[in-house]
């Protein structure tokens, strides 16, 4: 791995809420041009890690560098897909308008979006197959369609790094495929895609690299190196390893309960 091409470098990151560490001294490197999953049990600090990387949560200690510089200087290089449930979909606006928000960072304060932004947003909607829904009120979109609008918005950001918080949560199988293809396309274009992911089973198929997290970093690297019995036991406890890594689908029933059954 070429050390010069680190998209994100996290050193000694600790996040605590009132003396209770949610992330404990985490060192991580995300090499450019990879598709990486962040996995771990509930409460492992996956979303916290993502938000801290984005500067949304101040760290108690440690730092995050984006291509060697603090995020503050690199905002335009980072695209963000929050959890779908984090916004109010009854907000009075259209799908196209939401996608155009992805261009706001390039516009900066006070400048209004115009035809150029509209065209880019339309293009982004096209690449997630949502061009026919551009004028649709966002509350009238299905969950999968809303997720695609969020992805289109990140595409419109035209970033080098994409951070996505559970983009597969609550989407249908068709959308899941579409999202995966989009992620792979981004990766093949040399972008870095980092995804908080809940489904251990699909990690080896979907991702190049994985970060196994449970407050501490358990392991990170190529998926086949990370997904060992020892590492999984360290992250999830004995429950997992008694079944063995081959029986992964049976893992963590409580966290899978809310997810759609894939491939059906």
């Amino acid at each position, binding site marked *: 791995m070429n050390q010069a091409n680190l998209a994100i470098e996290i050193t000694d990151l600790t996040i605590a809420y009132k003396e209770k560490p949610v992330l404990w001294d985490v060192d991580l490197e995300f090499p450019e041009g990879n598709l990486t999953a962040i996995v771990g049990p509930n409460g492992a600090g996956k979303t916290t890690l993502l938000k801290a990387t*984005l*500067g949304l949560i101040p760290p108690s200690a440690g730092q995050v560098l984006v291509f060697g510089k603090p995020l503050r200087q690199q905002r335009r290089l980072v695209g*963000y897909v929050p959890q779908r449930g*984090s916004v*109010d979909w009854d*907000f*009075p606006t259209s799908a196209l308008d939401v996608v155009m928000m992805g261009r706001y960072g390039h516009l900066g*304060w006070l*400048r209004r979006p115009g035809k150029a932004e509209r065209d880019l947003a339309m293009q982004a909607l096209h690449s997630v197959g949502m061009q026919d829904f551009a004028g649709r009120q966002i509350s009238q979109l299905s969950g999968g369609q809303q997720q695609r609008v969020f992805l289109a918005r990140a595409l419109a950001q035209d970033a080098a790094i994409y951070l996505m918080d559970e983009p597969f949560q609550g989407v249908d199988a068709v959308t899941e495929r579409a999202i995966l293809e989009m992620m792979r396309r981004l990766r093949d274009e040399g972008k870095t895609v980092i995804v908080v992911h809940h489904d251990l089973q699909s990690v080896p198929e979907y991702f190049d690299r994985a970060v196994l997290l449970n407050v501490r970093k358990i392991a990170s690297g190529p998926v086949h190196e990370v997904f060992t019995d020892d590492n999984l036991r360290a992250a999830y406890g004995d429950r997992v390893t008694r079944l063995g890594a081959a029986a992964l689908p049976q893992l963590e029933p409580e966290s899978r309960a809310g997810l759609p059954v894939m491939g059906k």
Partner: protein
Amino acid sequence: METYTLEIILIAVVAAAACALPGVFLVLRRSAMLADAISHTVLLGIVLGFFLTGDLSSPFLVLGAAAVGVLTALLTALLERTQLVKNDAAVGLIFPALFSVAIILISRYAGDVHLDTDVVLLGELAFAPFDRFAPFGVDLGPRGLYVMGGILLINLAFIGLFYKELKLSTFDVGLAAVLGFAPAVVHYMLMSLVSITLVGAFDIVGSVLVVALMVAPAASAYLLVNRLPAMLALSTGLGALSALTGYLLAFLLDASIAGSIATMAGLIFLVSLLFAPEQGVVAQLRRRARQRWEFAALMLNAHLLNHEGSREAEQENRASHLTDHLRWSPEFASQVITYAQRSGLIAVEGDHLRLTPAGRQRTLKHYPSSGTLEGT
């Protein structure tokens, strides 16, 4: 119409429009109750401003009010962040605290000044034309009109300039922060604006009723349209309409103008709630009723389809048979048959019911298992 009447109406319309604009963002941010809180706590800013300047018409009073308004939002957010109380309780704790300090200060130190708690609470629009704006002795009209007109222009300018930033931080505060748009700064700028607007307007309609002008038109517009620019325009229009019709109501009833305006704002909301085209109560009831009939017709069609072409079809697919087998009351059965027939789903030949091609197609779409059975 007398100039006096015209001036009152004009002041009320301008005040209502000025309130309706920031109200849109309060409603969308689910912070409508913060308007209620700020409308009271700004009194503390006015009192402190008065103590500093000794002048009731000093512009520092407005600045003091804006500062206390922001303080209210800030303290509420801080209290909420302790996670020991929820948002509604935080609002309910902070605002009486600041308001009561103001009341004590007025009753203790400003008893002889015109900081009358009645006027603060209820306002008096009818007296507004007596307070003239007359620089160098030239009467240019009522002062209230200039104050509210100025505030309306400030609101228009602020929302016009920061439209993109306000929209983004209201819809997705996380992305706003990631893109460097400092949502906290935008939030407190909006709160300053809300405070200034409330101070200006409560002189006229009072601190209780001004909340109606800030929340009701925005909440009505939210139900009626589904684009932000349309919501801003409609909210302003409905605010102005409340003021206009409210004045007429007050004239007819010989009642409080402020009370009548707030009543009209409430009535307009009630009408929106009932008759909004898609989300209104009536539209929802009608949709539910239609779905009920559609589903009943579909059940009938499925029944016909199941027995179609079989030996017992002559027996099963009869109107008289529905009451026995589907356990429908005769009235309901005949209503469903009429509905299905009118929708072109079935044909009625005497007592015999037959699916039309359209009816068959519709049923197969909703009832695919029978389609696959037939296909195999």
